[in-house]
């Protein structure tokens, strides 16, 4: 079993900010838009270094999506920044018509996704955004797991032509993927190799999957752990190769089981290799106030939940 070291916990949104800083220095076409959340999105350095390429929109997310679409006409690569809830549900039709259907090269960058936003509660904790975004034709959907990966993804999506939804979070979490990694959109990352169960995880649940693997290992269970940072397009090949070997799968995500990563995996498996699957996800519910750790425990989104799901799915083989 490989060992992953937390090189210093950080928030994934700071990875986004670091990625924007680098893009500001390397890609003159990148522009940043924000709806009154500069501090939350960690983009102050980009703004300081490129004031002419920053657009403060105010609290007007619908307008932000339209302005971003318009900025692409003339060759700019706009990165919008606000919370995930206000990046998706609030502006769905603007994204659908002005960005996705209009084939605009906009990067929708969404912080504070999921329950781990914490104390602000359900008004701000969107658990439906992956589903909303993956249903849009042509939209790439990415959910990163730590600081380093978020920074790398931010840089990578600037070179991808087409709309992208980049989802990350608020809390400080372990940073364990390599610094200065090359991020390949649509390419799964195999983190552990095992024979008994496949764990496919995205976002904050990737670290939890690694923690779960340790517990399972102590019980004599070995797991394949696959980090699916790109939910669409899904790396079905990597998932199918693993599931052929293990015969069962647990999907893990900080999102509703409806519309999330788990459903995308289930679709692939049902078409090519019907396989028992357990879903670590929220169960069609809104969130609530609490600390991130409390919420992840209450809603069954931690290593413990993944261990139980793995044990259960193995009995269904």
């Amino acid at each position, binding site marked *: 079993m490989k060992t992953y070291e937390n090189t210093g916990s950080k928030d994934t949104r700071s990875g986004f900010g670091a990625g924007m800083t680098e893009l500001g220095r390397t890609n003159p076409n990148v522009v940043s838009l924000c709806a009154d959340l500069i501090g939350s999105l960690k983009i102050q350095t980009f703004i300081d270094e490129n004031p002419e390429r920053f657009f403060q929109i105010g609290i007007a997310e*619908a307008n932000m999506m*339209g*302005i971003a*679409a*318009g*900025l692409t006409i003339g060759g700019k690569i706009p990165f919008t920044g606000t919370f995930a809830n206000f990046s998706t549900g609030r502006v769905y039709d603007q994204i659908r018509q002005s960005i996705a*259907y209009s084939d605009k090269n906009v990067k929708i960058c969404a912080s504070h996704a999921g329950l781990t936003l914490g104390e602000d509660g359900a008004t701000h904790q969107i658990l439906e955004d992956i589903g909303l975004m993956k249903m849009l034709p042509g939209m790439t959907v990415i959910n990163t797991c730590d600081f380093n990966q978020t920074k790398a993804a931010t840089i990578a999506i600037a070179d991808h032509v087409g709309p992208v939804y980049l989802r990350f979070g608020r809390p400080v979490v372990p940073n364990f993927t390599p610094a200065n990694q090359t991020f390949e959109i649509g390419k799964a990352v195999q983190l552990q190799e095992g024979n008994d169960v496949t764990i496919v995880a995205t976002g904050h649940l990737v670290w939890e999957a690694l923690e779960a693997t340790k517990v399972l290992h102590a019980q004599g269970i070995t797991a394949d752990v696959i980090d699916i940072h790109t939910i669409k397009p899904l790396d079905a090949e990597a998932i199918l190769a693993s599931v052929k070997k293990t015969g069962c799968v647990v999907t893990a995500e900080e999102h509703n089981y409806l519309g999330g990563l788990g459903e995308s995996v289930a679709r692939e498996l049902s078409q090519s290799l019907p396989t028992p699957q357990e879903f670590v996800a929220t169960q069609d519910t809104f969130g609530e106030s609490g600390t991130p750790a409390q919420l992840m425990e209450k809603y069954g989104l931690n290593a413990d939940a993944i261990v139980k799901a793995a044990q259960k799915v193995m009995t269904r083989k």
Partner: protein
Amino acid sequence: MTDIKKLEAFVTQVRRDIVRQVHKVNSGHPGGSLGCAEFISVLYQEIMNRKEGFDMDGIDEDLFFLSNGHISPVFYSVLARSGYFPVEELNTFRLLNSRLQGHPTTHEGLPGIRMASGSLGQGLSVAIGAAQAKKLNNDNNTVYALMGDGELQEGQNWEAIMYASAKKVDNFIATVDLNGQQIDGSTDHVLNMGSLRAKFEAFGWIVLDIEKGNNIEAILTGIKEAKELAHNGKPVCILLHTIMGHGVDFMMGTHAWHGKAPNDEQLASALAQNPETLGDY
């Protein structure tokens, strides 16, 4: 010197194109299309600085965005007759596998279209973004947008209107098609918006009226005035007073022809009122 007669002939042909497109597929929006035929024709034929051919970025040329996408018949006709695609393609309006979708889209690669519109209230934001891209590119050309008056009931417009003046997006001329009609009746009846001039001015825009919005000379004078007012720190709004259905007597001044096609007899009457000038497709 502008040849008014030539423009009139152009507009007459555009009117024919509008009613013929809509009649053929028994669907589409002739009323608003006819009301804006003079304005869009004048923009493309006389006002806009346009490059040969089409590329999405539109650098070093003026750009036009149609927010009230349901008036696609007039947009398609003017684009085709301005050289963006073959006029024969107007035959495919709203047909399966056509680039001329019911509402305009970039998705099928139709030259001349830079954004999808149809879901109302979104075009102003996109046009403002394009205007800001021009500023970043040191491109001194002007961005034009057209929207319906009923469309201003959509809240996103007011986000955009507030933004454009706050950010001094002054390379931008937005026109409101003030025909006073929407699907359910007059705009005053459905949702009275009060004075649009007062609203735009309160939001920091320069506002001018073109009272005779279906008169080519009035439109020319009005847009030229708007151009002189632009590039001076504030966005410019033209309130274009139009008559819905203009140029086809039985369609004029009513919302009844917002989204309804003429029958064979009505088509014949409409065409008789607008004799062929540039050649039918």
